[in-house]
């Protein structure tokens, strides 16, 4: 133990800076915990409006995660396994929303899919579908920012995998689709699980794109992050408790991922 620790010891200046960084991330949460009115927690969480927001958050984030899984895995496979011109441009396009301010994503969605948007006008005219300010818009906004997390996680795993396993499956009589389903996907399962959990956590915490594209309507589009922001104006204690709830969920996700799945992603393909 001590020998291993000794081998990895950092030089003092680097160690000092690292400790400052840890403090930088930890202190805000300590501040939050210190101010949290624990006694009110149950009262806040049992308010009908909060219950409603919670239910909406869970339902929308699960939908967003499901859609991310449905479209994200094939997209990851395309990016990892198919050589085509402009692949890096496509990858950048599909993961842009990870680094974009979510509000910008929401604005873009609004002008594309809004009632008078480039594509939204046809949705309205042909199908009578009006996305903005609906629960569906929340799902769209969440999917928009969450799917890249799944795509990048799965793409990385597929890239590391030994493609000769697909060859072996093909020589045994498997079509490309059967080989993908029975060989590639099971081997990538740890990465898919990690991607799903990351995407779900991101969807659950989505704020900027949601409020821009879906608005803030109780029962329809007001998710927990939106409620938190709103509560900050009227009752800071409520905001504290809701924040804490989101932090707890994210923290559990990250700790769980690190121990159980992120390790699996790094394991050599086929052995995992």
């Amino acid at each position, binding site marked *: 133990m001590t020998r291993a620790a000794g081998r990895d010891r950092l030089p003092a200046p680097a160690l000092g800076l690292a400790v400052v960084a840890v403090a930088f991330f930890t202190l805000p949460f300590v501040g939050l915990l210190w101010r949290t009115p624990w006694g009110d927690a149950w009262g806040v969480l049992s308010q009908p409006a909060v219950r409603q927001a919670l239910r909406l958050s869970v339902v929308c984030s699960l939908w967003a995660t499901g859609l991310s899984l449905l479209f994200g895995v094939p997209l990851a496979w395309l990016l990892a396994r198919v050589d085509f011109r402009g692949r890096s441009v496509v990858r950048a396009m599909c993961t842009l929303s990870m680094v974009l301010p979510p509000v910008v994503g929401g604005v873009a969605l609004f002008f594309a899919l809004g009632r008078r948007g480039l594509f939204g006008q046809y949705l309205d005219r042909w199908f009578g579908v009006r996305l903005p300010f609906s629960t569906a818009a929340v799902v769209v906004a969440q999917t928009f920012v969450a799917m890249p997390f799944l795509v990048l996680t799965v793409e990385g795993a597929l890239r590391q995998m*030994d493609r*000769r*396993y697909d*060859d*072996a*499956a*093909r*020589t*045994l*009589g*498997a*079509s490309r689709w*059967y080989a993908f389903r*029975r*060989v590639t996907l*099971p*081997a990538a*399962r740890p990465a898919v699980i990690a991607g799903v959990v990351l995407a779900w956590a991101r969807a659950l915490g989505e704020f900027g794109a949601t409020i821009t594209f879906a608005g803030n309507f109780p029962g329809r589009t007001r998710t927990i992050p939106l409620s938190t922001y709103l509560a900050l104006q009227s009752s800071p204690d409520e905001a504290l408790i809701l924040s804490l709830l989101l932090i707890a969920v994210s923290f559990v996700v990250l700790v769980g991922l690190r121990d159980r799945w992120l390790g699996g992603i790094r394991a050599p393909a*086929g*052995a*995992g």
Partner: protein
Amino acid sequence: MALDIDLRLRLGRLELAAALRVEPGEMVAVLGPNGAGKTTLLRAVAGLQPVDEGRIAVDGAVLDDPSNGTFVPPERRPVGVVFQDHLLFATMSALENVAFGLRARGVHRREAREIAGGWLDRVGLGSYAGERPGALSGGQSQRVALARALAIDPRVLVLDEPLAALDAAARPTVRRDLRRHLESFDGMRLMVTHDPVDAYALADRIVVLEAGRVTQAGRLADVTAHPRSHYVAQLVGLNLVRGRFADHRLLLDSGAEVVTADAVAEGPAFAAIRPQAVSLHRHRPEGSARNVWSATVADIDLHDDRARVTLAGALPMVAEVTPGALADMALRPGDEAWASVKATDIAVYPA
């Protein structure tokens, strides 16, 4: 009724152009150094690498022929493959691995498992059906890979370096088992290897592939007795020189001359000489040997019971002597020495 291969293809720096035929029940080993294109040849047969030109056919049915656009994808070829590191699917049990091909072909789950179980029994692994590949030894995992390839009832079985993934201690046993299991397969068998021992043990015929070209093919005994390239000569441990033959003499490009007892038609020819037939002397020897020449000792390789002395000069050659004889002569690298070979110890054959 055979596997017919006549292909040309370019892959990176490799230019492969090879033709060979494997008869039913026959095992042909493609022997060659690393990078010669052996694995690419196998991949072409399996349909994992399309050919640029030429034709691959099994029992007259064309699998690949760019001239008329024929290409049968790997999943529809009657070809079973045993890959170099076996490539068992880690997420499945041994039984599921063997059943995979049948399931992919639409065989019902229970029936597929039954047939797969039978194959595992045949390779002596019936009791390992539930094991994951990670729990199997190298030899066991190879047998599962073999059962998996045979379970789809192929006409052609190809094996890529079947013994390379095993440690040296396990190899003889696995080689013997493999030989036994391969004998029960009556289709065409094609194996690639860089290890001549595997070829000796398993193959009826060998094809030597060097830098994408077939340099020699034939029965094992013929190939090993009459090497036609330095690669083969080295593999079988013979000295090989090439020159023009005329009147019991082989004249080398270097100007050196080898006198032989046998004669072949005038023209280009090879001479093969066993290292044990080459004698070394400190001083110019007198005697019956017709070939006597002086050379420089380039290298000495000592083994327990023999010493291999590499000679440089107009007639480069390896001589094998006893360590005692070497000690008596006190030869060291860089020394000048005399070498001699009797004309009757030289095998000469047309190039």
